[in-house]
């Protein structure tokens, strides 16, 4: 089933990688280069899921996540957090802000695609 997925990362390379892997799985991908733009796109488009980097300029991923949970209809939106290091504090913060899961960079495309498919199927 095709879903609309928002990818928020300040690295165009990472966005490109994620886009390629999700498009190959038949999903529509929206991109944003920071949390603020991501949050706006999440409000404007009927997205089914978001994949969010932590460290970004303007608004970081965790702030975006916290704000997103306050948006109508996005309380239980599945969100994957992309991290370089899955430190205890970071994971705790992610959980606090309602991250569904976190994926450690560098990630494998097939692993990400599987995780996305699994979470989308559960949410459906």
């Amino acid at each position, binding site marked *: 089933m095709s879903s609309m997925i928002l990818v928020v990362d300040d690295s165009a390379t990472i966005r490109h990688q994620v886009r390629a892997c999700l498009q190959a799985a038949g999903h529509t991908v929206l991109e944003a280069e920071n949390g603020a733009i991501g949050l706006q796109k999440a409000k404007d488009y009927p997205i089914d899921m978001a994949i969010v980097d932590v460290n970004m300029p303007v608004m970081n991923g965790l702030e975006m996540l916290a704000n997103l949970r306050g948006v109508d209809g996005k309380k239980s939106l599945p969100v994957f957090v992309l991290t370089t290091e*899955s430190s205890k504090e970071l994971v705790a913060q992610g959980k606090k802000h309602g991250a569904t899961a976190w994926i*450690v960079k560098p990630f494998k495309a097939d692993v990400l695609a599987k995780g996305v498919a699994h979470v989308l199927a559960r949410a459906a």
Partner: protein
Amino acid sequence: MKDTLKAILDTIRLPAELTQFEDRYLARVNKIATWFFVLHLPVFVLVAYLNDTGPGMAVLLTAAALIGPVVALKTFENPRNVSLMHGFTSMLMGGLLVHFGQGPVQIEMHFYFFALLAMLAIFANPMVILLAAGTVAVHHLALWYFLPESVFNYDAPLWVVLVHAAFVVLESVATCYIARSFFDNVIGLERIVQARTKEVDEKNKQMRLVMDNVEQGLLTVGSDGVVAQERSAVVDRWLGECRSGETFVDSLARVDERTADAFEAAFDQLGMGILPVECSIDQFPSEMAFDDRHFGLEYKPILRGEELVQLLVVLTDRTAIVRQEQLETEQRETMSLIERSREDQVGFLEFFDEAKVLVGAISEDLCEDLPLLKRTIHTLKGNSMLYEVHSIAKVCERMEDAMSETQRRPDATLLDELARRWDRLKQSLRVVLDAEERDAVQIRPEQYRELIEKALATPTHRELANMLMSLRLEGTRERLERVGEQAQRIGNRLGKRDIRVEIQDGGLRLEPARWATFWQAFVHVVRNAIDHGLELEEERGARGKAGGGTLTLSTSTEAGVFSIRIHDDGRGIDWDRVRTKAAAAGLPHETSADLEAALFHDGLTTRSEATLYSGRGVGLSAIRAACEERGGEVRVASRLGEGTAFEFRFPASEMAPSPTEYLAA
């Protein structure tokens, strides 16, 4: 036939050895059986009385029958023999009941033989049943022949006795089977357990042997995170001895907290089951390093359905492989540096001296605040990239990643790694560094001062004093040429191959030590110009610009102002974008001076992503700081699409001390 006979005999005969359990069990049952038979005495007296068959005789005969079990119970050592006595006694009791029960229900009293035979299974010994069956056969046949009224209340023919015997045989066969099964599976359980335990112990010993000698660390972690006792010996050698009940996170934390954290986070995620198992497994840390050793970590979940039962962790010591790779990389880097030192001795020494200071500042934690530390790391990374010391650049990159995510100083492991890599590099470059010293003409500072003093003392020798001073100075041409070469190298890496560098030095010379910090920071501006400023050739073509771009580097003096200028004919600064970024970062953004100031602000970058060369927003703030240190100011002139010029303006007196100033200092 022989085999069948043997099988029957094996069923009847119990193994000679008695287990403690059987001993205790038979002692208890034999005692109960004895009391059971003692209770027959009053019952038989009553039966004899009711049937008028002689209560006195009942007392006598029953008491006689009881002698056997009571004596056996008190004297026999082997409880199985006591049980045999009970088998024999039981049939005597059956016979006595039939005898004293003479009358209309005498035949019914025969049921008691069958009830007793069944009860004998409790001794778990087929021999007891066979003995009882033999006893009753002899008893019945003999009494039928000699005292028939003791057995039948009518004139029973032989075939009736044989029918009774046939029933006894049938019941005995079945009861023997039950008794033996009872023995094997209940009474003999201890024996079975012992045998199995022995087998398991043997297997465990073999497994232990494997676990003690295998070179990989094999261990299992339960769903509660606790490390199982059975694990290969190297696990405890590598991670320290695991206490009973210790979690794997605790074991890892002893050697590497970062890996312990990452493992804990991934293990929690695996336990939550939000992601498919293979995805969760992929989030576990796959390598760790401590005490100068490198390990690979692999994981295999052991599942029951979808539930995690255990996680198999395989630790592999990769130190030798990593060291080999490291050695090869380091050798390549050393060769490249030696090559560079031959091409540009001064440049190489400057890189080396600067890197020494930067590594010291980072690894000894001398940077006062986080922005300064970030700048220092960033500068070291950039310089290392320029001189192709990728191993150092990579450590810097990892530090930057860790810092940008945690907003804290990099952990000690990374600092240590940097310091150690630097030490090795220093060692391997000793040959070159020593050679530099050998080639130099050495003069002590006091001798040098004396020469200048003497030259100044004679008015006609003022020129000589200036010449002597200039020995210590560096021509800006060499410096600018070096910068230009760096720019072209960066360009090559970024696919911008035809960058033209124009140099106008104005014949100026500078005091090297005084300007070292500035030139270190100047690299950031050069990197920005090449990475962000100059477009790729196709993009330039599309905009009607010729070639790969021109970088102009110049130094000049005018009206007491010494200026260093760098100009590129690239895409220029997008001031609107700077304004947006400045506004987002809460900086003043109204006037062009505000925007210029914002451009040099720590952490502000107009790039949405960082490359290895630039984009983390720390470079320009570093050059501003270096410029202000020499009492200078920065001017920026840039038009979108046309290019960017940075001009650094200083009082000309800052260029170098005069001979008099030098002596005064």
